């Protein structure tokens, strides 16, 4: 917390290393250990696998910047994925399915934001509560069964390509661009920094912190809706447990990416690198066939190593 004596330009390059070092190390490691890891097919594989997580981790970055957290994201993703499946099955329209997913996701996000902002319930417990609700609803709407037989165009979303690039990657890139623009080039983005950094400042500026907070959580829910489409497309079905626990991977990716959990400092590109690092790690460990009991600890160790490196660098 010392004040820096010398004023320096904010240099994004200074921040890359934590996660970038980890990523480069991982790629080098698996490049040597796992034949086939560096093949184009495998790398594109990793990227496509990372798309759903990217779409959760980007809004999670914003939420964490407000000193918040959304534990319900995985469960909401599950629910929206089911909604996409059920509605597109019933109406034969992918678009209606997507709309349903986004609507349900945004509704849950709004409830989260309302609990946190208006009722002042700590984000951890508020979203733990809605997690349970989303999970319960998933079981109820699906009756615990997979939803199958959904229209073909839904599944095609996941495997199609646009100018040679897989559609999920295109969607993730568009999402990144949108979040980048939102955070760094709009007033709303500016206020997100203030939500975590100094909420008083917002109040003195005559802005409603509550409404902003609700919006941030609602965006998270809506993104879970869009990710729900990808999830359904990937499985060609809806399943009542499909996305459970993904919020932890999302939070881990945000942490690895160098976003701080205090004072509103977030870095979207870091989050994306964090997501890719998680994906590379999982893929590489599978390729070298590490026993699953060891793999269980892998993401946790990744987070700790990355933050440890970050800490080392910031201290020196």
């Amino acid at each position: 917390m010392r004040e820096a004596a010398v004023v320096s330009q904010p240099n994004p390059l200074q921040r890359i290393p934590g996660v970038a070092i980890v990523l480069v190390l991982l790629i080098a490691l698996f490049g040597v250990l796992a034949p086939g890891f560096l093949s184009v097919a495998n790398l594109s594989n990793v990227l496509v696998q990372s798309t759903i997580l990217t779409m959760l981790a980007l809004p999670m970055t914003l939420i964490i910047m407000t000193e918040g957290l959304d534990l319900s994201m995985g469960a909401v993703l599950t629910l929206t994925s089911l909604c996409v499946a059920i509605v597109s099955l019933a109406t034969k329209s992918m678009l209606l399915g997507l709309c349903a997913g986004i609507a349900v996701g945004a509704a849950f996000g709004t409830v989260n934001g309302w609990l946190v902002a208006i009722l002042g319930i700590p984000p951890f417990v508020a979203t733990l509560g809605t997690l349970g609700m989303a999970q319960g609803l998933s079981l109820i709407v699906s009756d615990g069964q997979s939803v199958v037989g959904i229209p073909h165009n839904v599944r095609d979303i996941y495997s199609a390509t646009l100018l040679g690039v897989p559609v999920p990657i295109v969607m993730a890139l568009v999402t990144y661009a949108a979040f980048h623009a939102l955070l760094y080039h709009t007033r709303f983005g500016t206020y997100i920094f203030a939500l975590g950094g100094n909420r008083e400042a917002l109040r003195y500026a005559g802005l409603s912190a509550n409404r902003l907070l609700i919006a941030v959580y609602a965006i998270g829910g809506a993104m879970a809706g869009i990710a729900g489409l990808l999830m359904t497309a990937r499985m060609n079905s809806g399943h009542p447990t499909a996305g459970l626990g993904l919020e932890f991977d999302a939070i881990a990716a945000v942490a690895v990416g160098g976003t701080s959990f205090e004072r509103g400092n977030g870095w979207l590109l870091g989050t994306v690198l964090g997501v890719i690092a998680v994906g590379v790690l999982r893929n590489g460990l599978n390729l070298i066939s590490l026993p699953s009991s060891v793999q269980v600890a892998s993401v946790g160790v990744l987070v700790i190593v990355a933050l440890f490196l970050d800490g080392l660098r910031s201290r020196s």
Partner: protein
Amino acid sequence: DGETIAVFTKNQTNPYFQTVRVGADVAAKSMNAKTLHYIPTKPDSIPEQLSQIEDVVVKKPNSIVFIPVDYKAMVPGVEKINDAKIPVVNITDRSAGGKFVSFIGADDYSLGLETARYLLKTLGGKGNIVIIEGVKGSLTNVDRVRGFKDALKENPGSKLLASQPGNYQRLQALQVMENLMQSNSQIDGVLAANDAMAVGAIEALDGANRKAQVIGINGTKEAIDAIKSGKLLASGDYNGFAQGCLGTMMAIRSLRDQPVINEIVLKPTVITKDNYQPYDQPLEQRTCPTFEEAGKLASK
């Protein structure tokens, strides 16, 4: 010789899948092949098994033995394997789609039916019964519970007090049983959809100093020990070891252009205190059925 077989199971903690993996290892060893195991770190995680398939396809094992974590949601994964032209054998849960060299499985319905019948026979066709279900919606659970209930219908003297989920978990079953004992003063029989829950229920009964006949399903080591000591009445043999053996055997045989059997649905066996001996030895020391025996194990 030296083929690599990738074996996909659902999780690390259900003893059933452990028996499948050992069966696969034993079969592969006896045929000079080797196995690689793929187990989701999050139990039964669909996205994770999908990713594992995508990753394994890059590695190109010679053949795959496959248990889908969800029989419907994993169809796109199976299709990826098919597209990569890797032969795949489906065991345990029958996949709702995709092309397989063969299917080896057990019939959950008749397993549930036969074990429940055995319990009801022991009770003389009457008594207060509770069912502890597995994970709601899972294929195995739906069929086993259907079998349980049909056996109860055959015995009008019996009464179903409650049917509650224990999610195949020992602790959850224990807790469910503790609570059920509070609201029901007389419980004569417990039908548990797997052994772990059966053992949990026994712990709860012991803790409350109450007695009831309990059956489980899977024929795990724990269950055999409990049958031996008289605490568990019976366990329906799901034949995980044989499924692992035969699945791997068919996978290797098809690679070697030897004949394979396209479908084996294993006959249900009820393990009781009268016939547990063959099961009462370490898994690794058991021997796989031969190809010739395999045909006879099939119920159809």
